[in-house]
């Protein structure tokens, strides 16, 4: 019996005596006070004594990773397109091929592959791969996963990830060989497979509800604890690349960037996600942690509503806006590894070519474009932006308004909203606003991901409807041969730069804070995180 149990028993006896009148009320209160000191005192002292227990746990225990985005409750890897989902799934599932931090592709569950003709690919699978539930991974699982990803969902539901796929027929040649055949050649195939998590065919057959409940992948970690804001991942010892170096990784969602930073600096976290550029110097000056940064594959831009006046079908007017913005100053506002954009395709993307002119701040050119547009200044419109998501988005939008109004060419109504309200504005009835600040992240290095949703008609909320652009995007998607694809994307980038359905101004900075105890942690420009090769010093 420990002290607390003894105390509780004593208290129960005292209570009985009090009821029977054998103990006075005053004596009972004294006893309770003594009990509080006896039991609570040591506990409080132990707690205040430098937090020894938790320090020890931190140094010898699991790696603690603090993320900036709330977890998704749905474990179906194709049931969402949330960045946090891709991040954690990277560790729970494997794919046929894998994207590397330099955006190149390496073999994953597929040991090798070959192209049989323009539409058909054959993949040879790695032997001895196991799912977390012990079941063996075979070509049947590839078939089920690819079909699920490309829109053949059970129960007739269309899954969000299906928007990234062109349907493919999957033929199981043998347990270790699988053939994918598309109705048309599919240029982004390998890159799409690099974000296509392999699920068990048995799980898929059980239905979507089953897939949503618990992840059962072949990944280097398996889910051990599933709470809304905390996920504990244990090492999967039978992983096909060998067991990970870390025994356990604890993922915790902390929405406030300052709180994440405090935890890192206090030694309570090993890696923190989405460090804001102004926090980088604080980390660098601290002892025991460092900041690492890359230019991400995310493009931040000002997006026009292309189906609404004054910008619909008026490229000169859009160019006048571009020539009125000081994009370089915006990049400097954000800082870090952010880069000035010179194409709709971010730097790590395949087939990217820098475009000209640079659309530097040039009021004379803006005036000339405005004259060509056939409108008289000032042109009035509403600029919508979000706060609390993209670093410095408020300052960027305010600078844009200031730039645009400086020479009396434009009159801008600036509307800044928190993220949910901003999304409502994008899709709102009556299409409020004419220009929006926002970003578009890319999950792979294939340019199709960058252009297919917002620049191809109907362009979701942008109202894109340029037939020439559509044709080039379709051609890029359905061209397999790399040189040919390169030529298509050259033409597409030129077209987009001239027509300016959006004004890209920056490839975003991506910074993480990492404790000095952590080794071999790499940043991916696609925002995913992999812990397989990471180690933690005691």
């Amino acid at each position, binding site marked *: 019996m420990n002290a607390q149990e003894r105390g509780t028993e004593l208290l129960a006896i005292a209570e009985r005596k009090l009821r029977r009148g054998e103990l006075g009320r005053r004596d009972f209160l004294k006893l309770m006070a003594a009990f509080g000191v006896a039991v609570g005192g040591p506990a409080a002292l132990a707690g205040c004594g430098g937090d020894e227990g938790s320090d020890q746990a931190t140094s010898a225990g699991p790696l603690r990773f603090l993320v900036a985005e709330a977890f998704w*409750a749905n474990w179906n890897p194709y049931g969402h397109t949330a960045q946090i989902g891709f991040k954690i799934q990277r560790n729970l599932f494997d794919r046929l091929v894998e994207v590397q931090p330099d955006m190149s592709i390496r073999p994953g569950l597929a040991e090798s592959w070959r192209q049989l003709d323009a539409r058909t690919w054959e993949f040879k699978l790695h032997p001895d791969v196991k799912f977390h539930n012990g079941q063996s991974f075979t070509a049947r699982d590839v078939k089920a996963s690819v079909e699920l990803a490309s829109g053949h969902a059970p129960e007739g539901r269309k899954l969000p990830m299906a928007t990234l796929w062109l349907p493919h027929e999957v033929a199981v040649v043998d347990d270790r060989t699988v053939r994918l055949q598309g109705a048309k050649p599919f240029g982004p195939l390998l890159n799409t497979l690099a974000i296509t998590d392999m699920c068990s065919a048995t799980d898929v057959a059980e239905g979507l509800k089953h897939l949503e409940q618990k992840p059962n992948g072949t990944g280097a970690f398996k889910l051990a604890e599933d709470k809304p804001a905390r996920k504990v991942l244990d090492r999967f010892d039978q992983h096909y690349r060998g067991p990970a170096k870390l025994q356990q990784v604890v993922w915790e969602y902390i929405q406030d960037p300052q709180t994440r930073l405090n935890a890192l600096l206090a030694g309570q976290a090993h890696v923190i996600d989405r460090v804001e550029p102004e926090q980088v110097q604080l980390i660098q000056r601290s002892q025991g942690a460092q900041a690492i940064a890359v230019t991400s594959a995310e493009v931040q831009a000002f997006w026009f509503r292309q189906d609404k006046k004054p910008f619909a079908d008026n490229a000169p007017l859009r160019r006048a806006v571009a020539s009125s913005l000081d994009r370089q100053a915006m990049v400097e506002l954000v800082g870090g590894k952010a880069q000035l954009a010179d194409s709709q395709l971010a730097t790590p993307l395949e087939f990217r070519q820098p475009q000209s002119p640079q659309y530097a701040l040039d009021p004379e050119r803006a005036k000339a474009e405005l004259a060509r547009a056939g409108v008289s200044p000032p042109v009035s419109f509403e600029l919508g932006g979000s706060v609390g998501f993209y670093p410095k988005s408020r300052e960027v939008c305010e600078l844009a308004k200031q730039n645009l109004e400086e020479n009396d060419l434009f009159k801008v109504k600036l509307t800044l909203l928190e993220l949910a309200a901003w999304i409502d504005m994008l899709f709102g009835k009556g299409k409020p606003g004419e220009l929006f600040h926002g970003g578009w992240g890319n999950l792979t290095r294939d340019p199709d991901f960058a252009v297919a949703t917002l620049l191809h008609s109907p362009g979701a909320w942008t109202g894109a409807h340029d037939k020439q652009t559509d044709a080039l995007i379709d051609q890029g998607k359905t061209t397999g041969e790399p040189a040919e694809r390169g030529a298509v994307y050259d033409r597409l980038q030129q077209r987009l730069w001239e027509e300016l359905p959006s004004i890209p101004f920056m490839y975003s900075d991506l910074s993480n804070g990492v404790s000095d105890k952590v080794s071999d942690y790499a940043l991916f420009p696609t925002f995913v995180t992999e812990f397989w090769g990471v180690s933690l010093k005691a």
Partner: protein
Amino acid sequence: MAATPVEATTAGGPEVGRRRGGVGAFVLQRLLQALLVIFGVTCVTFFVLRLVPGDPARLMLPPGTGEDVVAGLREQLGTDQPLPVQFVRFLGGLLHGDLGSSFRQSRPVLQLVVDAVPATLALAATTMLLAVGVAIPLGILAAARSGRLADRSILALSLVGQSLPSFWIGVLLVLLFSVQRQWFPAIGNTGPASYVLPTITLAAVLVAQLVRTVRQGMLEVLQEDYIRTARAKGVPARKILLLHAFKNAAIPLVTVLGLQVGFVLGGAFVVELIFNWPGVGLLALEAIKTRDFPVVQGVVIVVATVFVCVNLLVDVVYAFLNPRVRLGAES
């Protein structure tokens, strides 16, 4: 004016029977008022949440998703129905103790709230304990040394405490005692040490307010005739202060403490964000961001119920302590 021992003695007189009946009616009246308040809060929360821009279904899907898929999700969440229909459904669930399911977490709201409530209540309890433990001695000391250096110093400190916002105190404490010294954890609830900084942050403002209340109450009571009589009879000063004066000065403190529960629960939202404290504040903030209506409603109803219950309890205790309150209510 506080109740004197002379008035208190009348409580045991021939009017006891009538007053006991009075207490029952008083409690019943307060209970009905409490239910009305909770219902009012529920209605306001439900409708205000839905007036705020932000479509939960749209937030859960990527930008390229077709309108048919978005409409399907709205149907699944029930947000496609007219507001009165949604409200009636919600009330129907509420009557059965069902707060609905979280849009984003796919879990029952009751479970999420019940998981988070203990952390918030524990923090609120330690805050109240610390605040009362510090404020009462300081308030008594200030009153006993009225106009002297100790009194002025305590008043100055309480003014500083009231002027500083909680988030500033919290961030400062974290920087000093977690980041620089690493004495206490910066985030989370990992044990007794985790309570220290959030409790001090929340209690700082509360202490400042309570010190002033205690001091004021004590100053008033110390002017009473029975205190003068006690002094004339040679009762020791310490006994006069702690037994005779504080007993009566504590009555307004009870009321203030009841009201401060609301302040502590409200303040917990900010403090929980700074310290990533896994309570209802953190749960509600995230739910507001993602327009997870059922979770926000659940949190507001639970917090409002706690607040109303505590105030009800305070009213009842106060009515027992000061019979004039319930007599006033009866008249």
